[in-house]
């Protein structure tokens, strides 16, 4: 990634009086005139640094492939105990009925119907199912067209894949060499193995990924902040569901595109491996206090997906934008979390909170069962931590870009920015009844944000 600045950023900072200083970042007047290089659409903002390794290190002696049976969804009852799980279920049922009866905004029939409907595409898929099929659905292979498979350089291939991913709905795209430790040890009771085979497949006992699949494409899709702000209701939950449905289409279409070029593609959303770990390696963002990805462009308001492939591509590097230092002092997510599931520690460490965390990497580990227990109590998920994060902004005013850029460069201002973020009322809950009357763009997101 170059340090060149984009047209929109230039205008903003010029207006803010910093134009002269920033103009120095352009390598020539010609470069200034054309507003950066040709690949500007795939670049992070200029204040994002590339690194050789992710900011938070991995302990290679400990970090291993994770068994997703241990994650909080797979073992919730084991973690909270059968008695509490039953109690939570009862609370969930009673509150759902009560909220329906009261016609409480955010929990009414229309709100619930919206959240359920937004799952529609996601519910058709699963590991090697529906649009996430590991073999082609409709794509014609090059041999069927009477031509050889795609033979471009890795740089050209990366450019094509990124352009296609954007076209299919990705907010950001990154490419990395696949670290096999990010792939889960098993799925649906079957062992996931790498073998010297041409095509991926699964049988009764195992799921096989071809050895030659050495690349991972990390993808993010934006979630509607206007929905998330109505936390914790069905309206906010609809943002997540729609994010998953859009991921389903995105990975399905991108996999078909890669198959059309003559290569293997394994589309995946939350299945198969850790999307967060792959996204960190591919430079989509950094790991935040929530133990989730935070991107420089959209903060944590994204859903992640990935495609594993054998198409050789130029890889991206992990990034840093000062998030580690910011999260150390901010703690807004931890303070706002109603279940107190997020860490208040000043520094990230290797100490996991329980079996649901995969040990061997430095992070602020979360108490996931408490988080999920609150989902049960709220009857419709949560998402508070996503909204109160000062990096989650709609960027319709230049002040957000100035704050993000200066935080990335001068961490000494982080405490002041956190204070101001609170004072300005960012992250406050909004009335879910009013959501229905907002004049929102398609999918409730600004698809030009972070890309102009």
């Amino acid at each position, binding site marked *: 990634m170059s340090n060149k600045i984009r047209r929109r950023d230039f205008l903003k900072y010029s*207006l803010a009086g910093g134009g002269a200083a920033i103009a120095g970042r352009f390598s020539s007047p010609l470069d200034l005139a054309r507003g950066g290089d040709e690949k500007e659409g795939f670049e992070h903002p200029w204040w994002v640094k590339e690194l050789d390794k992710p900011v938070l290190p991995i302990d290679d002696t400990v970090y291993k492939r994770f068994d997703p049976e241990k994650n909080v969804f797979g073992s919730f009852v084991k973690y909270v105990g059968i008695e509490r799980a039953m109690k939570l279920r009862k609370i969930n049922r009673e509150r759902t009925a009560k909220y329906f009866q009261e016609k409480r905004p955010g929990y009414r029939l229309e709100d619930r119907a919206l959240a359920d409907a937004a799952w529609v595409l996601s519910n058709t898929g699963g590991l090697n199912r529906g649009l996430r099929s590991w073999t082609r659905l409709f794509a014609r292979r090059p041999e069927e067209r009477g031509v050889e498979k795609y033979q471009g350089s890795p740089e050209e291939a990366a450019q094509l894949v990124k352009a296609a991913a954007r076209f299919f709905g990705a907010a950001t795209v990154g490419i990395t060499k696949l670290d096999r430790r990010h792939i889960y040890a098993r799925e649906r009771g079957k062992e996931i193995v790498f073998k010297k085979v041409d095509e991926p497949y699964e049988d009764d006992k195992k799921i096989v990924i071809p050895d030659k699949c050495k690349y991972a494409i990390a993808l993010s899709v934006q979630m509607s902040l206007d929905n998330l*702000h109505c936390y914790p209701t069905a309206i906010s939950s609809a943002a997540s569901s729609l994010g998953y449905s859009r991921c389903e289409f995105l990975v399905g279409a991108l996999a078909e595109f890669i198959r059309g070029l003559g290569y293997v593609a394994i589309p995946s959303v939350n299945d198969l491996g850790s999307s967060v770990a792959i996204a960190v390696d591919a430079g989509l963002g950094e790991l935040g206090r929530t133990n989730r990805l935070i991107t420089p462009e959209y903060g944590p308001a994204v859903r992640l997906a990935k495609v594993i492939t054998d198409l050789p591509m130029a890889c991206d590097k992990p990034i840093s934008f000062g998030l580690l230092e910011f999260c150390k002092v901010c703690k807004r997510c931890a303070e706002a979390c109603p279940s107190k599931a997020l860490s208040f520690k000043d520094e990230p460490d290797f100490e996991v909170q329980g079996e649901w965390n995969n040990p061997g990497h430095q992070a602020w580990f979360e108490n996931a069962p408490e988080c999920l227990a609150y989902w049960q109590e709220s009857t419709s998920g949560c998402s508070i931590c996503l909204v109160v994060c000062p990096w989650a902004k*709609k960027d319709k*005013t*230049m*002040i957000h870009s100035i704050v993000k850029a200066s935080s990335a460069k001068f961490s000494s201002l982080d405490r002041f920015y956190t204070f101001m973020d609170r004072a*300005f009322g960012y992250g406050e809950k909004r009335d879910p009844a009013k959501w229905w009357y907002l004049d929102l763009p398609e999918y409730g997101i600004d698809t030009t944000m972070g890309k102009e």
Partner: protein
Amino acid sequence: MKKEDSYLTIRIRKRPWYAWLFWIGWLLFVLFWLEVAVGSFKEYEYRAFYISLAVFLITLIGGILVWLWGIIKRGRMSLS
């Protein structure tokens, strides 16, 4: 018609450089907070909108008062 009557004349008062710097700074500050107010309104961030609108209006009115005070002061000086 006299020749001078065919033209509009803009007269700019001579000021020291630091006074120009102050007024340019004031203008940028006012425009910045106006942009923040408009952007916050578009984001449905109403508290941010009201705060930035207040900062914008206070700065705008403050600047206008300083400008008027200068005019009045100069008027008094020319009378005395």
